[in-house]
């Protein structure tokens, strides 16, 4: 006798539901989380330091959590802005997960924080798969990294709600082909806003803060095409199957399973 069980469970369901809970908890206390993803050396820390400094000058309660495999260098740099900063050492893990983030925020995140920036591990592959409960996901690339970065890392760029192109002061020297980069972003994530910055010259400094603030005020956030397919157990899924479907004996796969259909309620 062959026993089969039709589980139909999303592999990342646990992370997704924890992230959804964290998003709700943060929203209830008036905090917007921004998840920053990029490859190492893209200039996330420099940009973030400048944005945090600006937040402090404007009296805007911001905080930052930065994750690295090793060293507290980034936390030291970010702390110069004067806002609360926490360094997370992942001990070799290539990404943050929602449960880890929630654990690090507990007892640390100041109550009145309006903007929480999470500087993910410098990596464009793994962090892309993990929802951290953020309300704005930002992917950064510098002009020195090549125009095809969005095509090489389509999941990271495809799921971004804002794309930031850093180090614009080096664009000419690097021979950065702006149009080609924009076309590549459009291919994997049509409609996403692309923001050009330079922490050195101050180009578009403060825009990231403004975008995060408007999300907190309820402004519509870009929904990437890649995020428009319902995950098997999408957040807010009304027919989440807590019970696994147990089928002993021959497996009736001929009948279409309701989960094969895109869930209309998460679209648009």
């Amino acid at each position, binding site marked *: *006798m*062959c*026993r*089969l*069980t*039709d*589980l*139909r*469970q*999303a*592999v*990342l*369901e*646990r*992370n997704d539901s924890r992230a959804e809970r964290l998003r709700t908890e943060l929203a209830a206390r008036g905090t917007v989380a921004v998840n920053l993803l990029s490859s190492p050396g893209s200039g996330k820390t420099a940009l973030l330091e400048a944005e945090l400094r600006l937040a402090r000058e404007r009296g805007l309660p911001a905080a930052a959590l930065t994750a690295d495999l090793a060293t507290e260098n980034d936390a030291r740099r970010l702390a110069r802005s004067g806002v609360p900063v926490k360094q997370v050492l992942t001990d070799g*893990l*290539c*990404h943050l*997960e929602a449960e880890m983030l929630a654990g690090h925020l507990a007892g640390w995140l100041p109550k009145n924080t309006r903007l929480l920036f999470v500087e993910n591990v410098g990596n464009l*592959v*793994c962090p*892309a*798969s*993990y929802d951290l409960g953020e309300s704005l996901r930002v992917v950064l690339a510098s002009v020195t990294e090549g125009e095809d970065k*969005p*095509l*090489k890392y*389509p*999941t990271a760029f*495809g799921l971004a709600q804002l794309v930031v192109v850093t180090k614009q002061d080096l664009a000419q020297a690097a021979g950065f082909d702006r149009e080609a980069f924009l076309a590549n972003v*459009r*291919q*994997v*994530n*049509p*409609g996403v806003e692309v923001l050009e910055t330079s922490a050195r010259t101050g180009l578009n400094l403060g825009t990231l803060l403004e975008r995060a603030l408007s999300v907190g005020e309820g402004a519509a956030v870009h929904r990437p*095409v*890649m995020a*428009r*397919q319902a*995950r*098997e157990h999408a957040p807010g899924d009304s027919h989440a199957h807590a019970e*696994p479907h*147990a089928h002993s004996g021959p*497996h009736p796969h001929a009948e279409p399973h309701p989960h094969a259909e*895109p869930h209309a309620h998460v*679209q648009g």
Partner: protein
Amino acid sequence: MHEMSIAMAVVCQVEEAAREHAAVGVEAVTLRVGELAGVVPEALRFSFGLACEGTVLDGAELVTEHVPGLARCASCAREWATGMPPRLCCEQCGDSRTELLSGRELQIAGVRWVHDPRHALALEEL
């Protein structure tokens, strides 16, 4: 390499199901992996073998079903295979209101449990 984290999540979920089904072992786990899921099946298979060690899944086979990326233009209703890297903008009308029909799946489709001789014996005695 987040495939290890994914493999561990799979093992954890199958272990839970194994308890519910009083299973003594797992022959195979079938995973549906979308073209745009950002997961490399070979890396996952390697990690899966390691993650199974010492659990009820020890020795289980990982079967992956590839799900191609498919998109549909909300404006002109054209449907196309997204490819990799995906083309998510309609090339016919240039509209960006694209719906993704498939390709992001990362799902445990099913589990085949190890035949339990005690269970079979119990059936024979009936």
